[in-house]
C-alpha cells in the first residue's frame, strides 16, 4: 500500500503511475487518480535525439539500510528491557560531564553502560570509566556521526547482563547525527549556556527530533548573560513536546529531576511488550 495516502499502490516497487502526484505540499487530493498500474514497471519516452528513455519509479529511503539496522538494534534492546539514549550536541556542550555525573548519581538504581563516539582519541572513554561503568569507545575516523551498524558492533563488546540503561554519546555535531537512527528510545539534545540562546532556531532538524532538551552548564549562565526565558521559547518553537531540563552537572543543579526522569523512563520500557512497535 502506498505509505502516503493508502491508495493501494505498492511503495518501493517500481510502478508506473500517471499523474500520481505525492509532491503537493498543500493538500492531499489525488488529482488525476487514474492509476494505470501497468506491468512493465516503467514508462518510456522518446527523446528528441531519437534515443528512448525509461523512468524507473523507486521511492526508496536513501538511508534504508541504516533504518533497517536501527530497527534490529531496537528489537535487541527492547527484548532486554534496556532504556537507550542517543545524546547529541555540538562539541564542548558538556555531554561527557553530564553522562559521568548521571552514572554516579544513578548508582545502583540503574546499571548503566556507555558507547561513546569521537573522530579520534579515547579521552572521553577514559573519563567515563572513572564512573565505574563499562564504556566502549568508537573512533569514527572522518565520519561525523554514529550509524546503526557501529552501535551493533560496539554492543558486542559490552556485557549486557543486568544492564538497565545504555547511553550513546554521539559525535559532537549538531547537524549530521540527526539523520541517523541508532535504535534508541530517546534522543537527548544538549545546549550549553555558552552555545547561545538561538541554537534551536539555527539547527532545527536536531532539536525537532529531541525527546528531551537539556540546557547544560547552568552554573555559567550569569557569566554568559544567558537569557533562560528566551532559550525556553526558542526550544518550544522547534520542539514543543520535548521534556526540558536545566542542569549544571558540576554544581548538581537539576540532576535529581533528570535522574528521576530516567528511572521513570526505564520503568516504562520494562513494562512495554517487546513485540510492540
Amino acid at each position, binding site marked *: 500500500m502506498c505509505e502516503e495516502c493508502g491508495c493501494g499502490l505498492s511503495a518501493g516497487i517500481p510502478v508506473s503511475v500517471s499523474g500520481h502526484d505525492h509532491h503537493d505540499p498543500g493538500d492531499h487530493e489525488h488529482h488525476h487518480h487514474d492509476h494505470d498500474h501497468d506491468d512493465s514497471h516503467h514508462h518510456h519516452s522518446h527523446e528528441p535525439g531519437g534515443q528512448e528513455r525509461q523512468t524507473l519509479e523507486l521511492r526508496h529511503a536513501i538511508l534504508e539500510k541504516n533504518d533497517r539496522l536501527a530497527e534490529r538494534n531496537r528489537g535487541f534492546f527492547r527484548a532486554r528491557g534496556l532504556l537507550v539514549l542517543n545524546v547529541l550536541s555540538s562539541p564542548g556542550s558538556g555531554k561527557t560531564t553530564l553522562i559521568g555525573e548521571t552514572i554516579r548519581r544513578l548508582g545502583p538504581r540503574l546499571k548503566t553502560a556507555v558507547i561513546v563516539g569521537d573522530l579520534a582519541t579515547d579521552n572521553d572513554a577514559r573519563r567515563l570509566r572513572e564512573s565505574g561503568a563499562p564504556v566502549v569507545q568508537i573512533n569514527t575516523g572522518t565520519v561525523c556521526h554514529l550509524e546503526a551498524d557501529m552501535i551493533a558492533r560496539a554492543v558486542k563488546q559490552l556485557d549486557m547482563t543486568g544492564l538497565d540503561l545504555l547511553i550513546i554519546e554521539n559525535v559532537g555535531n549538531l547537524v*549530521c547525527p540527526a539523520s541517523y537512527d541508532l535504535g534508541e528510545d530517546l534522543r537527548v539534545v544538549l545546549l550549553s549556556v555558552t552555545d547561545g540562546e538561538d541554537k534551536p532556531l539555527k539547527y532545527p532538524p536536531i532539536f525537532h527530533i529531541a525527546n528531551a532538551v537539556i540546557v547544560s552548564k547552568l552554573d555559567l549562565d550569569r557569566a554568559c548573560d544567558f537569557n533562560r526565558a528566551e532559550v525556553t521559547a526558542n526550544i518550544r518553537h522547534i520542539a514543543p513536546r520535548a521534556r526540558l531540563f536545566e542542569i549544571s552537572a558540576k554544581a548538581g543543579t537539576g540532576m535529581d529531576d533528570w535522574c528521576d526522569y530516567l528511572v521513570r523512563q526505564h520503568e516504562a520500557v520494562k513494562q512495554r511488550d517487546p513485540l510492540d512497535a
Partner: protein
Amino acid sequence: MHEFSIMQSALNQVLREAGLAGAARVHEIRLRIGVLSGVVPDALQFAFEALTPGTCAEGAVLRIEEVPARFWCAKCGREFVSANLYAECPDCGDPSGDLRAGRELELSSMEVDHV
C-alpha cells in the same frame, strides 16, 4: 558533511537499479529532500559531481525536490506548512508534535536508457 555518505548510499541504489534494468546509462536522478532532514541540497549536488565520474551515472542530471515541513494541527483539524520550521499552527498558535512531511531523504525516480 554527511552529504557524501548519503549521496553514496543513493548512488549505490541507483547503480544497482540501473544494473537490474540492464541500462547502460543513467540520465537523470530525482531525490526528495525534506527541509527538516538535516541535509543540504547544495552539498548533495557537490557530492554527486564528485562521486559519479567513472560510473554509468557520469554526466547525469541530479534533480532535488525540497519537501517543506508540514505539520498537523489537531485543534484546527488541518495541516499547515511551516516556512520558518516552527511547529506552531499559524492560525491558533497551538504547538504540533505531529510532523507529516519534511524529514524525507528519498530516491524517488531515475531515468535510464530504454532497454
